[in-house]
């Protein structure tokens, strides 16, 4: 069974208003970059790097690949230029690009060598409580057993606070499929957690 610190359980979940605020800020810096303000790249990194890296990590299962994907995505953003002004939902756009880059990288990796991802730290704990560290390692091990499609749906729902419609947009699937992947993944995790 899973042991969890009280303060961690009481941590406020991310709200949709926070997500909307992030989207608005990204829209603003996208417009800045589209108008030629190169400094906006720094702001985009500050706002989006964690989510881009997180999705790439959960998709590829490799911190090194996630770093490569983050760099590729930022370069792609820089090369878009004025086209960025036409992006309506920058968060979904960035995460969609991240997913496609991750897929490309994962395909290349598969050709090179099939590497296990059981060791990948999908989740970590900032708590000083060692029990939380153990929980994070176990949760990561469980997540590594999920199909990547279910894992990315869970990440986008639980850690990026995306709606299912937005997840569908990012993953390039209908909303129903996005919700189904999330639900299947969570059911598997629930079964695994209950059996321990």
């Amino acid at each position, binding site marked *: 069974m899973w042991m969890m610190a009280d303060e961690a359980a009481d941590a406020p979940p991310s709200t949709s208003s926070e997500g909307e605020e992030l989207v608005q800020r990204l829209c603003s810096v996208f417009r800045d970059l589209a108008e030629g303000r190169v400094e906006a790249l720094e702001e985009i990194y500050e706002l989006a790097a*964690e989510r881009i890296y997180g999705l790439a990590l959960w998709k590829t299962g490799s911190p090194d690949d996630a*770093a490569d994907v983050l760099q590729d995505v*930022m370069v792609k953003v820089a090369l878009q230029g004025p086209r960025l002004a036409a992006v309506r939902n920058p968060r979904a756009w960035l995460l969609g690009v991240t997913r496609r880059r991750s897929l490309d990288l994962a395909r290349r990796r598969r050709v090179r060598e099939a590497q296990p991802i059981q060791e990948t730290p999908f*989740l*970590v*704990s900032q708590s000083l409580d060692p029990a939380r560290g153990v929980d994070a390692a176990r949760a990561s091990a469980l997540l590594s057993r999920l199909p990547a499609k279910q894992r990315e749906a869970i990440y986008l729902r639980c850690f990026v606070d995306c709606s299912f419609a937005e997840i569908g947009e990012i993953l390039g699937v209908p909303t129903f499929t996005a919700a189904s992947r999330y639900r299947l993944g969570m059911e598997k995790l629930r079964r695994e*957690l209950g059996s321990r």
Partner: protein
Amino acid sequence: MMKHTDPERVFAGLEVPGPPDELHNLVVSRARAAFLEGARWDLWTRLWEHPVLRVAWAASVGLLIIAHLGMSVQPGSTPTVVTSQPSYQIEEIIEATRLPRLRLDVASVGVSLDDELTPGDRPSVARHKEMS
């Protein structure tokens, strides 16, 4: 300590690892370099992507098409068909281009070909010498 089987409750206390700190400068500098590299075609891309200019281009092309159609297909008129030129026009052209025949009996300079000369008006050799 609490026991949980709900994944969302488990996730609540944990975080997804962020990118390494050393990645920040590297990624931003490469993105900046890519941006500056891309600035070479930036002007044309701006022109191409500018929404107002796009509308203006579309409007001008539309106007040109409408004007073309309006001029080529006027109401109540049948399109003119170019055929071979009628014979009377050809005769006129031949007449206009035909050189007048030189009249041998008009040898004097300054006498128009159109002047009617009678045999009596023919200049004599003596008059010719006077003129010269």
